[in-house]
């Protein structure tokens, strides 16, 4: 069985950042493995640990710098990695979901996995559609916002029996036929720690760099439909009100406020 995990290197911004043009200055940026992808990697590795002969391949779209991040996935137990990059991609200011799905789709076609795990969303740009768009592109079944997966059923029956988080606190239990793309929600597992020794050892694992040519994708296909038009820091507006009194009084006052604001009915 082959499991493909899509991972993204996300930027984290320091507290006192500065903006220049439509970008945050590089000094204030740090890079890390996307939190949701961390859970997806863990889920993939747990599949590999539970089954015989399960290969885990991590795939990312990113510049050379992102190898540091993808190495985390390798240190945690992915067997090998694919990094998609090209000058044509570098020229795009902000990759839209469709383009990412296109690029990852080309990798899926090449690798032919049984199951693709992606994170629900990305920490930095908060895009949350890549997983589903990818399923659409490659014609796989899909399930989004998965917070439980029955590992044994995947391995034994080739069915992803999942629990999904829906709006309004509703949860759905559903079976998805493989091959499928699952968008993994945080909390599904406890991602393991990748030790430094582990990261160092992962240096010997293969990271295969694929260009657009390698993937058979044309440069025109990566033209993004998104432009960043402005970047600014919104004014924080907050209005805090302290309710005096003992617990009973505070509760009564709070009830009044909620009623007044229309949060609860009369």
């Amino acid at each position, binding site marked *: 069985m082959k499991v493909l995990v899509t991972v993204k290197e996300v930027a984290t911004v320091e507290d006192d950042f500065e903006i220049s043009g439509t970008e945050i200055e590089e000094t*204030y940026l*740090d890079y890390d493995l996307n939190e949701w992808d961390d859970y997806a990697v863990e889920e993939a590795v747990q599949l590999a640990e539970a089954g015989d002969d399960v290969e885990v391949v991590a795939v990312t779209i990113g510049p050379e710098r992102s190898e540091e991040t993808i190495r985390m996935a390798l240190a945690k137990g992915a067997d090998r990695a694919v990094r998609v990059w090209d000058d044509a991609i570098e020229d795009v200011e902000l990759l839209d979901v469709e383009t990412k799905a296109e690029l990852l789709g080309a990798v899926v076609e090449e690798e032919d996995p049984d199951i693709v795990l992606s994170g629900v969303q990305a920490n930095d740009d908060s895009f949350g559609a890549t997983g589903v768009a990818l399923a659409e592109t490659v014609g796989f079944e899909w399930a989004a916002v998965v917070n439980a997966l029955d590992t044994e059923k995947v391995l034994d029956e080739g069915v992803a029996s999942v629990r999904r988080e829906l709006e309004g606190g509703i949860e759905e239990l559903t079976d998805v036929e493989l091959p499928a793309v699952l968008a993994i929600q945080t909390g599904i597992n406890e991602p*393991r*720690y990748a*030790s*430094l*020794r*582990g990261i*160092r050892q992962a240096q010997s694992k293969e990271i295969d760099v694929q260009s657009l040519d390698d993937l058979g994708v044309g440069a025109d296909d990566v033209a993004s439909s998104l432009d960043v038009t402005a970047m600014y820091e919104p004014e924080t507006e907050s209005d805090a009100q302290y309710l005096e009194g003992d617990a009973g009084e505070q509760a009564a006052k709070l009830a009044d406020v909620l009623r007044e604001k229309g949060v609860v009915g009369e």
Partner: protein
Amino acid sequence: MPSYMLAQAGVETRPTFWRIGHVGEALFYYLAAVAVAIFLYGVYQRFATYARGADDPRERLTDLPARVLTAAKLVASNEKQFDRDLYAGLMHTFILWGFLSLLIATTILGIDMDLWTLVLGQPSFFVGDFYLAYSFVADAMGLLFVVGVGMAIYRRYWVQYGRLWGKHTSTEDDLFVWTLFLLGVGGYLTEGVRILGTSATRDVSFETVSFVGWFVKDVLQAAGVTPQAAAAAYPVVWWSHALLALAFVASVPYAKPFHMLSSYANLVTRDEDAGKRLPRVPEDASPEEIGPSDIEDFTWKQLLDHDACTKCGRCSSACPAKAAGRPLDPRDVILDLKAYREGLEAGDREEVDIVADGGTSVVDAETMESCMSCMACMDACPVDIEHVTQFTEMNRRLTESGQMNKNVEEAVMNVFQKGNTFGDPDRKRPDWTDDLDFEVPDAREQSVEYLWYVGDYPSYDERNQHVARSLARVFEEAGVSYGILYEDEQNDGNDIRRVGEEGLYEMVAEENIEAFQSCDYENIVCTDPHSYNTFSNEYEQFGFEDGDSVYHYTQVVENLVNDGALGLTGTELNDTVTYHDPCHLGRYNGEFEAPREVVRATGVTLDEMPRNRSESFCCGGGGGGLWMDFDEETKPSEERIREALEDTDAGPDVDRFVVACPMCMTMYEDGRKTGGYEDDIEITDVTELLVEAIDAKEK
């Protein structure tokens, strides 16, 4: 029986094997041989187990004669038993010396009977003055022995002394102490019966030298026992005593008495740097090979550690984690490992992980996370068991298997990504200097006498930045040539290593050494005792050669004070304070006096807490404790502040709690708030006190 005939001829001696007969004597020798064989086989088995253990990274057998001698001195003086506990010291001294004397006495008798008279055909020397002196000394030392064992029994069963009772207390403990008691008392009974029995046929008045035996004889007589009855009963009494003694000899390697050998061996092979200098892991070791996964992964010395444990509970009673209700009991960890090994050998335990999260392993992850690496256990252990080394190696296993505690992981990742535990950018490291009205020299650009390693907390944590600024002022005031590394400083790694992230420790150690080497300096001075410890004891493992010129700031400041560089008269302040020894400065590195000197030089009255110097009680911040949240009954920091306010001479009049470590500062500022002590006491660093004194002088 020649010896009996001698007695009849009027020479003072005692009949050996009296009324036992030739068959009995032969039987005795046969049983003795069997007992010795069982003993030797058991000892061989134990040592064969150690031989199967992994190699130990420390040299432990070099200079063996000196090691044997030092260990013998430790055992003979019982100094470790007297530490913190006079009663136990006396008890152990009495038993040890009583036992050894009786052992020597029996050996002398054996030499006389079997070697001197039998093999060499010489006339027995077990007669006359020699016999009288021998009997007196043996009786006196035997009495000491019985008194010692009695003290042990009294404490164990009557007082029900807390630390003696634990999860692993079992029948072997009862058997050990009661067998010793019966052996001691039985010896006197045998002697008394013999004196009474032989009195029928000879004048036994010379036997008064065996004053205890004589007393027993008197008691028997008073109870109406006739010499004839005594003579008749003697074989039964003698055989009971002999069989018990032989059974004891045979049992030594199989139960608690083995500590006589294992604990001694443990002292011989001890490492005096244990704990403060942790072992490296082999450079080519993969994550799976780091830290113990199986019992065979423990080194031979660690297996010996497990067997050397006497269950005395001193470690656990000194452990701050246990006192705070964290799920850690250092004695239980050592004995759980031993029980697991013995269970595996006996085939009645399944193989499980040594350490893991989830409750099925021998040691639970939470237990290891609870350890503060404070070394109180090792300081208290009378047989030099190296808990902290083993606990760190188990933390390494947790780290390498991805099971690091989440809160610790955050701090560790910050160090990996940003070089400090706060996760703040390195360009902000020198921000603490902004409020000073002088420029702190840059050691990267000018040569300095003291390269000052400021540390994470003094650089980034607001409360500790005040400490850093105070120290900068002291250096300025005294005209010290010093400088800092600015952005090129990184976390020192001491605690990273102790939570088990050896790979990251290696990385920061190497990078810090590189930063040091790019500067021109004579000495390194640290604000934090944790940095001081790892620079001076551990960086050497990575090629750092200046370990001997690393100082804690209190040591440097002490010299400044003594040289009068600060112009203090010793009357500047008049508060009453108490001083808390940081584990890494005091217990780890033996520096107790320098900070006290500095404190006193400000004019304050220094009032000691009962647990001071090597008995200091950890603030709870060591071993990653600073980064974790625990469900604690009373935080160690709160308990310690309570001690300062209740158990010192001045009690509630203690105005300040003086610390010399940034981690202690953070923990105690917290304990002061959560414990409700805000109005009662202030937490002050030694330097802050000094700056106040300087200011008072200037006024």
